[in-house]
């Protein structure tokens, strides 16, 4: 078969629009998801067993089921339960935020745990009050340690966002599939769509390695 990538030129704008939706969705959910993840990460280390329990169930459930089914659940079931209409964007944001919250909470939890006993001893020996221990030592250290993993969480989110195409949201993947169906040129169109995702995700994963090296070097004592 002969390949003809020029068909794609006609759909530049549509693809750009789809990509913009993907990026927008990803950015919104990074902000909301990281905030949620941070709170949940704290909740999982809370002294109160009920708070800890709720947080754990949330995280384990979202990590233990396919994102696709979470998405379907939010799209089809949440409106029924709440009795209100949810726009595609709203549903997508809710679903992916909950997903991102679950994975980043694990990142934050691990980094909070990594602030070791020795650092705490030093805090006590210096007589630092609890508030200062948390604000000036534990949190900055935990967040710094979390940065590389958070970045790869963002890449995961960017990739998972393609799932919203399955529920009819016009993201890059959705637009690509539409064009592919209309032109009957799936090889060219889907390959280009894949390359666009790759062109964004690949440099980000390299950045993760770079940042990780820097931070490890800085935090090594």
């Amino acid at each position: 078969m002969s390949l003809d990538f020029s068909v794609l030129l006609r759909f530049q704008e549509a693809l750009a629009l789809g990509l913009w939706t993907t990026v927008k969705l990803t950015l919104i959910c990074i902000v909301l998801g990281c905030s949620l993840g941070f709170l949940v990460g704290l909740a999982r280390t809370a002294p109160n067993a009920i708070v800890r329990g709720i947080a754990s169930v949330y995280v384990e459930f979202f990590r233990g089921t396919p994102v696709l089914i979470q998405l379907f659940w939010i799209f089809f079931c949440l409106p029924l339960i709440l009795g209100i209409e949810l726009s595609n964007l709203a549903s997508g944001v809710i679903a992916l935020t909950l997903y991102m919250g679950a994975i980043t909470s694990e990142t934050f939890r691990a980094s909070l745990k990594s602030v070791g006993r020795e650092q705490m001893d030093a805090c006590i020996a210096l007589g630092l009050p609890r508030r200062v221990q948390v604000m000036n030592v534990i949190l900055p250290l935990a967040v710094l340690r979390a940065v590389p993993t958070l970045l790869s969480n963002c890449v995961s989110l960017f990739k998972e966002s393609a799932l919203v195409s399955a529920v009819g949201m016009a993201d890059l993947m959705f637009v690509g599939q539409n064009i592919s169906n209309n032109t009957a040129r799936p090889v060219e169109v889907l390959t280009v769509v894949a390359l666009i995702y790759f062109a964004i995700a690949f440099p980000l994963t390299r950045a993760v390695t770079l940042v990780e090296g820097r931070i490890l070097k800085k935090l090594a004592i």
Partner: protein
Amino acid sequence: MNYTFDFNAVSLGPLIEGLVVTVQLTIAANLIGVILGFPLALLLMSRLAVIRWPATLFVEFFRCTPAIVQIVWFFYCVPMLFNVFLGSVTMGILALGLNLMAFNAEAYRAAIQAVPREQIDAGIALGLNPLQRVFHIVLPSALRASVPVLLTNGIVIFQQSALVAIVAVQDLMYQAKTLATETYRPIETFTIAALIYFAVSFPVSQVVGWLERRRQILTS
């Protein structure tokens, strides 16, 4: 909310059938991924750039594009490009297997490179030849270290396998979708399907957690 739950409306039969397909997909993909991921890892670490580069490109492609794009691409493009027509479950297995192979190769590579330099030095000091060093020092330690990651990747593929529902493979997700539309009972259906996925994933992730904790204790 004025929705009345009726979990009896959901017949478990089709869901179980779907689960069987999902499990088949998972096991077959894991066989491909666990076995072929290892030689791929060796290619990734080759000293020859002509070998290393294509292998790296293969792995990075799978790691840096959405799984759903890979699967849709595979189902539409492989028959057109190569003129091969396979059953949809076989296609699903291949698509998921290749994806897992890439992720597992990375896990093997990381584990091999994490074997401490001193261990290898000790092997040299004890007079082991290079092959002996690989078989008696590097591999045992690396394979053991990679087990938790391989298990995690395996369970991720179990979850990712839900994506083949989009290209009409009749797995658990597909059956849930169909059932939800037929019965107008999306909440009950999707909740039950999600619980089934969870019931399989959760124990495995607990085992992984236990393995990792044990490893930390043993190595500290």
